[in-house]
């Protein structure tokens, strides 16, 4: 019991996820900069590792300004609700071993619900800060969500179809002989593209398009709310990549040699290596592409990705049966 609480708080719970969030932000800024010929963060800490933390702390002590037409209750309390979503979801992903901190037989369904809940909170947030930019942003956000949700859910559920269970833990344990990626590559591809849309990274950073609608739904936030919202977006990246590692890349499983080092170290190392590799893939894709328009993004999801994910799911069902 005590062990579970400790795990939930530190590793692989809250502290671990938040640290990974900062490290991912640093990695993203650094690799994106080097691929463009720039240097990225350099000053805060060795090679700029502490820069995301410095930005977070700086935002914490800035003044908070609220537009007069905004809905006060939602504006003040909803950012905290958005922050909880990826933290809770990380508890269900196995990190330090083949079993997760908290798991039950339907936790994949809970994950899907939490993804929907997070986007709902963002839509409410952007609508509540009533300015012309955020109104446009909330329209785009809802349209993008409606487009990517179904391919995302189908590609998440396809591994569950293969294993016959909705528990992430069991899906991970069923990959001890071969990874799901080899059996359902299209699901993996659809998941990565839908993940880019969910995290609002190019080519799908339409709801928070920096050069068109200032900052999209983040426009009217400042101070502590902005710090936590930005951190929540990074945690969303960490969670999305962790889920992909668990569902398609075999989670923390890998060959464990006999030695005096505790077996958790090996599992965590495998997990982190796979996580960073996936993160690098996402960063390369986001640096290489321009931003799409909302109509083209919706067309892409409905016309190409939805049939692809359905076809892959059908294929898996046929092979299994």
């Amino acid at each position, binding site marked *: 019991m005590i062990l579970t609480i400790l795990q939930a708080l530190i590793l692989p719970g809250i502290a671990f996820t938040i640290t990974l969030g900062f490290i991912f932000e640093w990695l993203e800024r650094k690799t994106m900069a080097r*691929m463009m*010929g720039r240097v990225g963060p350099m000053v805060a800490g060795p090679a700029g590792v502490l820069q995301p933390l410095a930005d977070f702390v700086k935002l914490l002590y800035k003044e908070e300004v609220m537009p007069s037409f905004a809905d006060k209750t939602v504006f003040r309390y909803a950012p905290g609700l958005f922050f909880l979503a990826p933290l809770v979801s990380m508890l269900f992903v196995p990190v330090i071993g083949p079993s997760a901190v908290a798991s039950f037989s339907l936790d994949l369904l809970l994950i899907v619900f939490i993804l929907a809940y997070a986007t709902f909170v963002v839509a409410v947030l952007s609508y509540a800060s009533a300015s012309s930019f955020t109104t446009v942003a909330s329209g785009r956000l809802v349209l993008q969500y409606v487009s990517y949700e179904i391919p995302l859910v189908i590609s998440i559920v396809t591994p569950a179809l293969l294993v016959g269970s909705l528990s992430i833990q069991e899906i991970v344990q069923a990959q001890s002989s071969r990874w799901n990626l080899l059996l359902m590559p299209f699901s993996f591809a659809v998941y990565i593209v839908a993940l880019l849309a969910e995290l609002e990274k190019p080519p799908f950073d339409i709801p928070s398009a920096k050069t068109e609608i200032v900052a999209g739904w983040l426009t009217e936030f400042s101070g502590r709310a902005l710090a936590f919202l930005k951190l929540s977006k990074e945690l969303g990246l960490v969670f999305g990549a962790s889920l992909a590692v668990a569902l398609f890349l075999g989670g923390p499983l890998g060959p464990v040699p006999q030695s005096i080092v505790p077996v958790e170290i090996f599992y965590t190392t495998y997990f982190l290596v796979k996580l960073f590799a996936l993160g690098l893939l996402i960063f390369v894709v986001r640096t*290489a592409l321009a931003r799409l328009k909302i109509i083209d993004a919706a067309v892409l999801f409905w016309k190409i990705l939805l049939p692809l994910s359905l076809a892959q799911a059908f294929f898996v069902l046929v092979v299994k049966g």
Partner: protein
Amino acid sequence: MPRKLGSAVPEMIRTLIQPPVTEGYPFKPLQLSERFRGKLDVDPERCTGCGVCALVCPVFCIDMIDVGTRKVGDRELPLKKPEFDLAICISCGECVDNCAFNALELTRQFELATANKQDMVMRKALVK
């Protein structure tokens, strides 16, 4: 031409391997060309106080100040020397080109920021 997704990727990988092109300023000194037009400098020995620089300056940053008198024949005429306000100077080089005595020069120094505006007034030519 055929449409491709990710035509930028090979170049991205190439740029990743090479060192970044960002100049290391302010941690490393900046490489400037020979003709860089920075801060104005005056040689007090060569300046005769003719006043042509003050006439041609486009932004009127040169003031001719009385520093004494000079003898011309048997008359006493006022002697004026220039005072340069470097905060207004645009480093265009008109005064440098028009000085007949080669007393003015544009150096390569450009870090002129200061907290006190009076630091920017150059009075070294105000000698008799």
